[in-house]
């Protein structure tokens, strides 16, 4: 089921939670709604599910306008952050509940619920109550309950945030597997970039209710639309330096001039943010793009993470472990083809 969101706006009294959000989600895709807390991603999910009405805009499932349809008639499955299993029902009863409401005959109900329990690997636990399950098991049951009525869309609200680190990796692969097996269009909300990058077909990155960029994960990383996207993705976080365009290079504030062929088209005198991913700068013996002074280094085994100074501005780079650079030694840095971006300092728009 293809989902079209056009010009969605949601207002709560004085605050705008989502503003003019337009996106198209292809059928069978796994989409991550990514953004910092309070960016409106959960609000967006709740509007797609029908729990929250939209203030303006349109939601289409394929070609059907579902904007004014109530939650119980949209045919969506939703997994809540706290799973929201019915505490007084067993796992089996929980999974059966949506079918019971649809008045599906008991035999068929049990059969479909059992099939779902098997899909999410909880068939051993069907007689237990939710309180007797671990977080990961509850999560699986919640997914089974959401999927049992064959929904058009599966929505997951921060599905992994209540799990411990190891289980989180296991469950995110599970979600991917279940999604691949059922081919259901899936949207999940997360604030964890790694989670979003690792399993989604496309990432929708939001900030303060505004869509920043929607693309496949690698493109989001390699080609951010603006400074926020570049900042948000990547670990360690991207290095940000500020400066002004001068003579076809960038004169860093209280720092050296950075030369690069790419910078020649920039307008002289424009204030810019030069963002460099840690892995984009390499140490070279020849003349590089800029010289820097080593501040501190942290040995990490296969390489070292070094803080180096460009004048007053500090950036993180990786240096080979077999080199020994003492504090205060000068390095020539070469900027790679990938991972170097120039943004307008005020608007954050990408220039290069």
């Amino acid at each position, binding site marked *: 089921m293809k989902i079209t969101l056009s010009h969605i706006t949601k207002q709560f009294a004085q605050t705008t939670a989502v503003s003019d959000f337009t996106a198209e989600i292809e059928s069978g895709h796994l989409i991550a709604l990514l953004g910092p807390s309070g960016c409106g991603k959960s609000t967006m999910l709740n509007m797609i599910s029908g729990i929250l009405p939209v203030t303006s805009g349109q939601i289409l499932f394929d070609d059907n306008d579902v904007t004014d349809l109530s*939650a*119980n008639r949209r045919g969506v499955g939703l997994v809540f*952050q706290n799973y*929201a299993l*019915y505490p007084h029902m067993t796992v089996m009863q929980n999974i059966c*509940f949506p079918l019971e409401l649809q008045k599906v005959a008991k035999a068929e109900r049990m059969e479909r619920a059992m099939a779902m329990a098997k899909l999410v690997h909880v068939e051993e636990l069907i007689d237990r109550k939710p309180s007797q399950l671990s977080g990961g098991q509850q999560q699986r049951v919640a997914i089974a309950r959401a999927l049992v*009525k064959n929904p058009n869309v599966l929505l997951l609200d921060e599905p992994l945030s209540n799990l411990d680190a190891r289980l989180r990796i296991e469950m995110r692969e599970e979600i991917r597997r279940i999604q691949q097996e059922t081919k259901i269009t899936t949207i999940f909300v997360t604030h964890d970039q790694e989670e979003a990058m690792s399993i989604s077909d496309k990432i929708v990155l939001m900030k303060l209710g505004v869509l920043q960029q929607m693309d496949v994960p690698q493109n989001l990383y390699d080609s951010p639309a603006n400074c926020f996207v570049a900042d948000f993705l990547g670990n360690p976080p991207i290095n940000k330096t500020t400066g002004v365009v001068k003579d076809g290079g960038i004169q860093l504030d209280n720092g050296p001039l950075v030369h690069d062929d790419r910078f020649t088209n920039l307008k002289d005198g424009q204030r810019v943010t030069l963002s460099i991913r840690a892995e984009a700068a390499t140490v070279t013996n020849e003349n590089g793009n800029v010289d820097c002074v080593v501040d501190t280094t942290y040995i990490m085994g296969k390489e070292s993470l070094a803080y180096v100074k460009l004048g007053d501005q500090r950036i993180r780079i990786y240096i080979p472990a077999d080199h020994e650079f003492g504090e205060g030694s000068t390095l020539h840095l070469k900027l790679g083809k990938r991972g170097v971006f120039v943004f307008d300092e005020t608007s954050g728009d990408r220039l290069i």
Partner: protein
Amino acid sequence: MQTKHKVNISISTIVIYVLLSLGALVMVFPFYWMITGAFKTAVQIQMFPPLWIPTSFALDNFQTALSMAPFATYFMNSVIAMIGCVSCCSFTTILGAFAFSRLDFPGKNIVFGLLLGLMMVPFEMIVITNYRTIIDLGVYNTIFALIVPFTSSIFYMYILKGFFDSVPTSLYYAAKIDGCSDWKYLWKVMVPLAKPSLVTIILLNAIATWNSFLWPMLAVSDPSVRTLPFGLYAFVSEGGAHTELMMAASTMIVVPMIILFMFARKQIVNGVARGGLKG
């Protein structure tokens, strides 16, 4: 280890237990006096110093009491009134609590505030209004007169709303997504979850109805619709002061409540402790 445990029983524990035992004795004594009184003769019950242990356990007094007033009818009336009140009241309580807890309607908080304000009006003050109501409804001196004024309770609604409020909202939305209407959500999710609270409410309500005296005395006069407490009172005033018969009748009246209490003791105590309810 064993001896160490025994040594650890401190003076304060002993004092606490002595005080609690005294309290229990004070509470239990009237019951003891009532039950033993039911087995004494008219002479024995007036003896001084009192006769602590009855000399015979014959059931004569019970038989005499039963023959002197239609206690079986009173008992049936009490049961009918109790079932009527409790079932109607529980139903309206559930609906009201759900509406105030989960639904959005204009003026919700104002209405709820007004209802809470009404809780401060003592029952004795609205007796006249209630009396007018049952006269106008034409149910005076019928069993309905005992039920109509007690078909809803703000107090129980308030207690249940408190529980409903504690159920996470996500459960409501999950049910909505599963295709559940408000009505089904209430009966399939909320009510089963609220079972402990509901049982407490029902028990307290049942006890209150069973023991209620003032209203039945005002609303009915005919012996055929009297309830037990009022019937007992009438028995005393109409039959003269036969203390031993009164004790026998009283014993018979409290027995159902004592049985109920023994079975549901844990529920009642839990409910009172958790909700800070009054009995």
